[in-house]
């Protein structure tokens, strides 16, 4: 990326001053800690970003920001206010991850997170249940509203994503579950957010539509 020497010179001067003040506040050990924090939180945070943020925008918009914690807090709050389905705990996790990875001192080109740690980690507790689960349509309605409706439309009648009411895929519950878990085409993977039970509940509700 281009460097502007004038700004650079100012920035060097400023960072010298800030550096002395900052020395007392942010030690090298804490910098190290930020990297550790971002790696530790990455699997869950990245799953959340795909599920909650990329409904409206691709994650590259996030990755190009370099902001202090209070700006990340304000940004996540703004997105919640605009309708992002982010719980209090999720917002907290996102802010911790974002301000540890995409802070003002982070380089323009960040090394990718360790791929082993990057596998989306399920949030929900009952995801270990691999066997067939019975869906509950009344629960599915609410889960659909909070997770799927933005793209698939109110009442699953379609929107940016295809119409799901009376969609042939509903006849193949295993294929439906795989699609939700791992995504397909422009649809992101939901494995980090929805449990097998959640998916079965959504399925049960969709077949009533």
């Amino acid at each position, binding site marked *: 990326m281009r460097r502007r*020497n*004038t700004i650079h010179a*100012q920035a060097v001067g400023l960072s010298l001053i800030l550096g002395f003040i900052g020395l007392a506040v942010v030690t090298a050990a804490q910098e190290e800690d930020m990297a550790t924090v971002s790696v530790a939180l990455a699997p869950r945070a990245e799953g959340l970003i795909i599920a909650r943020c990329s*409904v409206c925008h691709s994650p*590259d918009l996030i990755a190009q920001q370099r902001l202090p914690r209070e700006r990340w807090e304000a940004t996540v709050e703004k997105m919640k206010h605009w309708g992002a389905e982010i719980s209090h705990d999720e917002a907290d996790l996102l802010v911790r991850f974002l301000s540890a990875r995409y802070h003002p001192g982070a380089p323009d080109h960040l090394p990718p997170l360790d791929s082993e740690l990057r596998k989306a980690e399920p949030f929900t507790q009952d995801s270990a249940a691999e066997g067939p689960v019975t869906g509950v349509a009344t629960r599915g309605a609410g889960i659909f509203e909070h997770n799927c409706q933005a793209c698939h439309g109110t009442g699953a009648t379609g929107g940016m994503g295809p119409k799901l009411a009376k969609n042939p895929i509903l006849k193949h519950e295993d294929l439906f579950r795989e699609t939700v878990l791992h995504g397909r085409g422009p649809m992101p993977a939901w494995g980090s957010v929805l449990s097998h039970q959640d998916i079965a509940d959504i399925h049960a509700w969709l077949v009533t539509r």
Partner: protein
Amino acid sequence: MTLSRRSLLGRLLQGLGAAVIVNQHVLVAQAAGEEPARSESGPLTVRVTRPFDAETPVREFLPFLTPNHRFFVRSHFGPPPPEAVSEANWRLRVGGLVERSQECTLKDLRQMDAVTITAVVQCSGNGRAFHRPKVPGVQWERGAVGNAEWTGVRLRDLLAKAGVQAGARHVQFQGADRPVVASVPLFTRSIPLEKALHPDTILAYEMNGRPLPLLHGAPLRVITPGWMADSCTKWLMEITVQAEESKGYYMETAYRVPTTPVEPGGSMSGPSTPTEAMAVKSLIAAPQEGETVKSGPVTIQGMAWSGEAKVVKVDVSFDEGKTWEPARLVGDDRPYAWRQWQLVWKAKTAGTLTILCRATDARGEQQPATTPWNPGGFLWNGWDRVTVTVSA
């Protein structure tokens, strides 16, 4: 399956346009969880994959007009579905404080007097990436700007048909683009009536002699020559004449700059004003950043523009702005277009060197070394800067 997803995708994409392929590669990279891919060699440098935001590589600014497929793309929600803006379905409504509400088809508009204006269109956030401390938003560098010929009807002709009532002060524009989630505020903007009635403010249905492309606002967009692109609503569907400036996030919060200086890193607590006129600015299009040039004569070329005045001077510096040499203004000289400039430089000493440029307009406004920091990172117009290596 014997084919990997990537090679299958590659095969599927064979025969499609390079821009699409680049875009798909970005999507694949994202699906794989990689850092965003930046294509520096394609027709556009992608900043955000969805909604699609991309800027023009500066080397592409050498021609006077920026071709449609290389023109920067910015919107908040991406284009509306093509059927929503197809000629059969699309209508333009004019309402609010008017005597006679109007509903026009594209054919109706094409039957009105047509005007063509060459104008720079520039995103208010162009150069945001250079503000320090960094500011949230799309990290545009130098290329969220372009110069095109826009053909359409005068907004004032349409407003005359409708009959503007006394008490009208602002004109609101609403495009057909919609957010994915209905709770996100619409991109609703207004401009003062005076600008709306200016004879050069037009509703354009052609760009560089071609029907307006979907990414650039088909079938109709606003062009407010000399003003920033946030006033140039794309996919225009509704014009509302009103007494007040529009409400909502994109008028009251975003696209505003402080009227008194804000401490870098601070927030907008004092008075502010919407981003309107463009600030005087110039860019170096050749040589390119990082290029190696042979010692001897080297032609330095670029463009310069200003919102509401003519560019009268462009200077080039080879010593970090201590001394400046005037460049020659060349090519077409049209009111709202950019002006091309050249300077033949005799590169002598081998080594790395930085070339700077700055423009001055007829009001005496001069491009500063850096632009005052503002919370939105708007209106960057600091000196442009290209570092080259001179080989013996």
